[in-house]
C-alpha cells in the first residue's frame, strides 16, 4: 500500500476516495454504482479480501475509488483490517466515504469516531435505510450531520436511492473532517498527549496514532519504527507501560468503552423508534433457516432445488443442447472441414480436431459441457449468497463439521466445491487459521465431487438402483468423516471457535446476482479454460508418443487385480486427472459398451470420485497451500481412493448385494 502512495507522489496527484465500513454493509455495491466496474459483492463476511480500485467521474470531477476490505475497528485484528488502516494512513484520500448500516448506527458511529481521530475528511453514508425503516428505526441524518460536523447521507444501494445525493456530495467540495471527538479518561488523555508530542508530523495524525499505540496495536510498531529513531520508539513503549500501570485496567478496553458511550449518545439523539413493520417475513424466514427442524427442511428443499437447477437443467438440458446441437452439430464439423482444407499436415490436424484435439476435445469440453453446468451453479450459488442463506447453512452444518475438526464456516468452500473445486480452494481463505484451510483443502480434493463430475455420476448411478446410490453416498460420507477426523488429529493446532456474523435475510436483486455470475463465468473462462487446452495438448502428445499405452500397461495391476476393473478403465483415471469429469464420462462410455458390471460401475465411480482432483484444482492447491502440502495431499488422496475402491470391490463381491 505504501508503494502506491510513493508512486503517486511523483505523478500529478490523483484524487482518491476510499470506501470504508464494517463487512456486509454494501460497500462493494456502492463501489460498483460509483465506478461502473464491478467487484464481487457477497453476503458472506470477509469475502472482499482484495482491494479493488476503479475510476469514477462525478459531475466532471475525476476520482479514483478504492473499495477497502470490511473492518470492525481501526485497530487491526485481521489482515483485512490492517490493509484498510494502512490505506487510510498511507494514501491520505481526499474524501473517505464511510458506509454504515442504518439499522446498526452505534456500530457505524464507533468507526466514524475513530476516523474522526485520524482527521480524515469524511462523508457518512448510512446504507440499507429500507431495512432500518422495516425495523422501525428512523434516523435524522441532518441532526446527526450537525452533531458530527460532516455530511450524512442515507442510501439504499441496490435501488440506487440516495445515490444522486452521494455523488453531489463527492463532487461539490472537499469533505469536512468530523468535529465530534471522544474525551477519554484523563490518564489516557495525558499519556496520549505525551506520546503524540513524540511523533513527527509526517507520521500521520498524532493523537490517533498515540491512541492506537495505547490500545496495544502491535501492527503499528513497524510503521513507527520507519518514522522514528529507536530511542523514541522505546520511550513510547515505556509511556505505554506506565499508562497501563497507572490505569490498572486494560487501556484498550477503556478506550473502546469511551467510544461506545459517545457513539450511543450520538445514535440515541439522532434516532426515532416507531413500530416495526408488522410482517417481518424475511426475518421469520431467516430465523427458520437456522431452526433445528425447519432449517433441516429448508436445507433439503435447497439441495433439491440445487439438484434440479444445476443437475437437471444445467447438466441435462443445457449440456445436451450445447454439446449435441451446437458443437457436434455445427462447430466441430465446421472446424474439421476448415482444418482439412487449410491445415497442411496430419499431425497439426490431429492436434486441432483429432480425438485429443484442442477444438474437438478441449474447447468442446470447456464450453459445451463445463460452462453450462458451472454457469448454472454460479447463478444458484449467487442467489444463495445474496439472500444470506450461506451463513445460516454454516449454523446448520457446524456440528457436522466439528466432527472433522472444522467449524461451520467450512461449509462455504464445501458447497462451492460442489460447483467447481478450483474456485472452492480459493474461498478457503474465509477460514481463520492455516490449519483449518489445510483440512478444508484436503477434504475438498478428496471427497467433494464438482458439478460436472456429479452430473455424469448421477446419470450412471441412476441406471443402477437406489441401493447403489445409497452405497455411493454412504461410502463418500464415511470417507469424508474418517479422513476429516484423522486430518484433524494429524494437522497440529487447535480447532477454531465458530464465530460468524449472520447478515439479515434479504431478497436478492436480480441485477446483482447476474453481474456476479457473469464475473465468475469470466473468471472461469480465463482461469480454467486454458488449463483444458494445456491438458489436452499433453494428452495428445502422450498419445502420439505412444506413452499413453505404456502408462495404461504400468498401472494395470492396480486397476485389474486390486480394483477388479477392465484395463480400459485406466485411461479414464488418467484423463480424470486432467479433467475430473472427463474421467467420469470415460467410465460412462465403458458402461455403455457393456464393459462394466454393476459392481465394477460402483467401484470405478467411488474411486474416481475420491481420486485426485483435476489439474486446475491441483495447481490452485499448490498456489494457495504451497507445493509440499499439495503434493502430500495428492499422494494421500491417490492411496486413499484406491484403498476405498478396493475395499468396496471385495466387500460387494463377498456380500453379493444386488445392485440393479
Amino acid at each position: 500500500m505504501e508503494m502506491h502512495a510513493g508512486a503517486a507522489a511523483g505523478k500529478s496527484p490523483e484524487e482518491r476516495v476510499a470506501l470504508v465500513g464494517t463487512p456486509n454493509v454494501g460497500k462493494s455495491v456502492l463501489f460498483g454504482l460509483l465506478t461502473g466496474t464491478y467487484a464481487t459483492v457477497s453476503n458472506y463476511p470477509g469475502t472482499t479480501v482484495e482491494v479493488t480500485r476503479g475510476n469514477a467521474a462525478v459531475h466532471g470531477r475525476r476520482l479514483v475509488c478504492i473499495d477497502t476490505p470490511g473492518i470492525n475497528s481501526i485497530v487491526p485484528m485481521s489482515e483485512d483490517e490492517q490493509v484498510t488502516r494502512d490505506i487510510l494512513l498511507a494514501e491520505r484520500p481526499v474524501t473517505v466515504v464511510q458506509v454504515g448500516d442504518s439499522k446498526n448506527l452505534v456500530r457505524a458511529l464507533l468507526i466514524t469516531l475513530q476516523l474522526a481521530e485520524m482527521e480524515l475528511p469524511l462523508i457518512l453514508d448510512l446504507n440499507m435505510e429500507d431495512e432500518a425503516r422495516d425495523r422501525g428505526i428512523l434516523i435524522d441524518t441532518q441532526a446527526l450531520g450537525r452533531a458530527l460536523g460532516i455530511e450524512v447521507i442515507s442510501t439504499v444501494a441496490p435501488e440506487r436511492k440516495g445515490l444522486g445525493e452521494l455523488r453531489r456530495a463527492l463532487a461539490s467540495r472537499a469533505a469536512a473532517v468530523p468535529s465530534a471527538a471522544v474525551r477519554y479518561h484523563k490518564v489516557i488523555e495525558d499519556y496520549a498527549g505525551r506520546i503524540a508530542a513524540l511523533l513527527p508530523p509526517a507520521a500521520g495524525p498524532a493523537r490517533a496514532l498515540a491512541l492506537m499505540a495505547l490500545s496495544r496495536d502491535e501492527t503499528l510498531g513497524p510503521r513507527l519504527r520507519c518514522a522514528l529513531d529507536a530511542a523514541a520508539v522505546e520511550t513510547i513503549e515505556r509511556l505505554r507501560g506506565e499508562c497501563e500501570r497507572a490505569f490498572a485496567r486494560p487501556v484498550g478496553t477503556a478506550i473502546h468503552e469511551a467510544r461506545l458511550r459517545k457513539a450511543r449518545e450520538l445514535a440515541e439523539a439522532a434516532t426515532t423508534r416507531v413500530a416495526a413493520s408488522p410482517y417481518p417475513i424475511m426475518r421469520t424466514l431467516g430465523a427458520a433457516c437456522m431452526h433445528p427442524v425447519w432449517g433441516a427442511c429448508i436445507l433439503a428443499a435447497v439441495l433439491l432445488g440445487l439438484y434440479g437447477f444445476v443437475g437437471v437443467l444445467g447438466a441435462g438440458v443445457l449440456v445436451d443442447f450445447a454439446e449435441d446441437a451446437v458443437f457436434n452439430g455445427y462447430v466441430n464439423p465446421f472446424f474439421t472441414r476448415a482444418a482439412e482444407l487449410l491445415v497442411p499436415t496430419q499431425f497439426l490436424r490431429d492436434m486441432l480436431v483429432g480425438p485429443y484435439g484442442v477444438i474437438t476435445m478441449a474447447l468442446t469440453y470447456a464450453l459445451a459441457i463445463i460452462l453450462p453446468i458451472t454457469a448454472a451453479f454460479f447463478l444458484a450459488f449467487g442467489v444463495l449468497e445474496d439472500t444470506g442463506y450461506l451463513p445460516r447453512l454454516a449454523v446448520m452444518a457446524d456440528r457436522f463439521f466439528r466432527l472433522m475438526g472444522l467449524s461451520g464456516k467450512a461449509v462455504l468452500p464445501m458447497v462451492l466445491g460442489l460447483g467447481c473445486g478450483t474456485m472452492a480452494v480459493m474461498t478457503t481463505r474465509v477460514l481463520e487459521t492455516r490449519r483449518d484451510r489445510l483440512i478444508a483443502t484436503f477434504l475438498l480434493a478428496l471427497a467433494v465431487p464438482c458439478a460436472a463430475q456429479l452430473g455424469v455420476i448421477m446419470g450412471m448411478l441412476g441406471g443402477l438402483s437406489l441401493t447403489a446410490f445409497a452405497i455411493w453416498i454412504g461410502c463418500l460420507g464415511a470417507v469424508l468423516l474418517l479422513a476429516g477426523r484423522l486430518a484433524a488429529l494429524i494437522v497440529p493446532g487447535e480447532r477454531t471457535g465458530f464465530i460468524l456474523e449472520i447478515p439479515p435475510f434479504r431478497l436478492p436483486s436480480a441485477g446483482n446476482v447476474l453481474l456476479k455470475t457473469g464475473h465468475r463465468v469470466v473468471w472461469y473462462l480465463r482461469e480454467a479454460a486454458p488449463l483444458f487446452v494445456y491438458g489436452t495438448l499433453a494428452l495428445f502428445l502422450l498419445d502420439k508418443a505412444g506413452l499413453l499405452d505404456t502408462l495404461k500397461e504400468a498401472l494395470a495391476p492396480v486397476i485389474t487385480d486390486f480394483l477388479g476393473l477392465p484395463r480400459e478403465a485406466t485411461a479414464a483415471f488418467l484423463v480424470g486427472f486432467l479433467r475430473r469429469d472427463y474421467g467420469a464420462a470415460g467410465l460412462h462410455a465403458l458402461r455403455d459398451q457393456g464393459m462394466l458390471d454393476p459392481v465394477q460401475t460402483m467401484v470405478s465411480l467411488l474411486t474416481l470420485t475420491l481420486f485426485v482432483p483435476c489439474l486446475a484444482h491441483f495447481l490452485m492447491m499448490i498456489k494457495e497451500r504451497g507445493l509440499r502440502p499439495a503434493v502430500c495431499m495428492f499422494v494421500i488422496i491417490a492411496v486413499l481412493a484406491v484403498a476405498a475402491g478396493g475395499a468396496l470391490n471385495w466387500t460387494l463381491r463377498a456380500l453379493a448385494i444386488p445392485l440393479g
Partner: protein
Amino acid sequence: MKDFAHKIVQEGPGTQSMFEDETLETVWDFIELGHAPAVADVVARVGDEARVRAVSLAGFITIAGDRISLTPAGERRARDVVRRHRLAERLFADILDIKDYEADACHFEHVISASVEEAICTLLGHPPLCPHGKPIPKGACCELYTRKLAPLVRSLADAEVGAMLRVTFITSPGLQRLAGLGLVPGAALRLQQKLPAFVVAIGETTVAIDRDVASGIFVRSV
C-alpha cells in the same frame, strides 16, 4: 494437591491454624470419597502425627482407634476451608485463566475473609462444582440465592432461549473477534437459539457461535 498441602505445612508460615485447615481439608476429602480415613492416611498427606493429634485435642476431630472423624465444629470449619479452596480454583481457572492454579488455591484458602469468599461466590454465580468436578459446599450466599435470586452470573451456554442478557465477562478465545461484532462486556443481547448452534442478537447484529465459545461468555439477566 497433597504435595502442596505438605509444602505449606513444611515451609509456610506454618501456624497451627493453617495446619488445622490442611488436616481438616484432608479428612473432608476422604469422607467425601466415602470412608473415614485412618490416622496414617492423613499423616501421609500432612506430615506430623503429633500435630494431627493436637487437632483432635483442639476439638475438631475425634480419633477412635485408628479412624478419624470430624466433630460438628470440625465439620463446619472443614466445610469452609474446602469451600474457599474450590471457589479459589474456579476463580483462577475460569476468570483469571491461570493454567497452574493449584498451589495458589492452596494459599488462597487460608487468607480470604468471609466477605471476600461471598463476593467471589457471587461473581462466579454460585458454582456447584470445582474444576475437578467435586462439589463446592454451599455458603450462606448460595442458600439465599437459591431461595430468592435468579442466577447472577452464568455461562451463556446455560441461559434459556429468548432471555435478555447482559455480558459480564468473556473468557473464551477469540475475544477480539467477538469484540469487533459488538460482543463486549456490558453489551445487551438476546439469545435466539441454542441448537444447532447458538445465535445471539446484539442490537441489530446477529452472531452465531458454537457451544465452546458460548460457554466462555458469562452473562446476567436484565
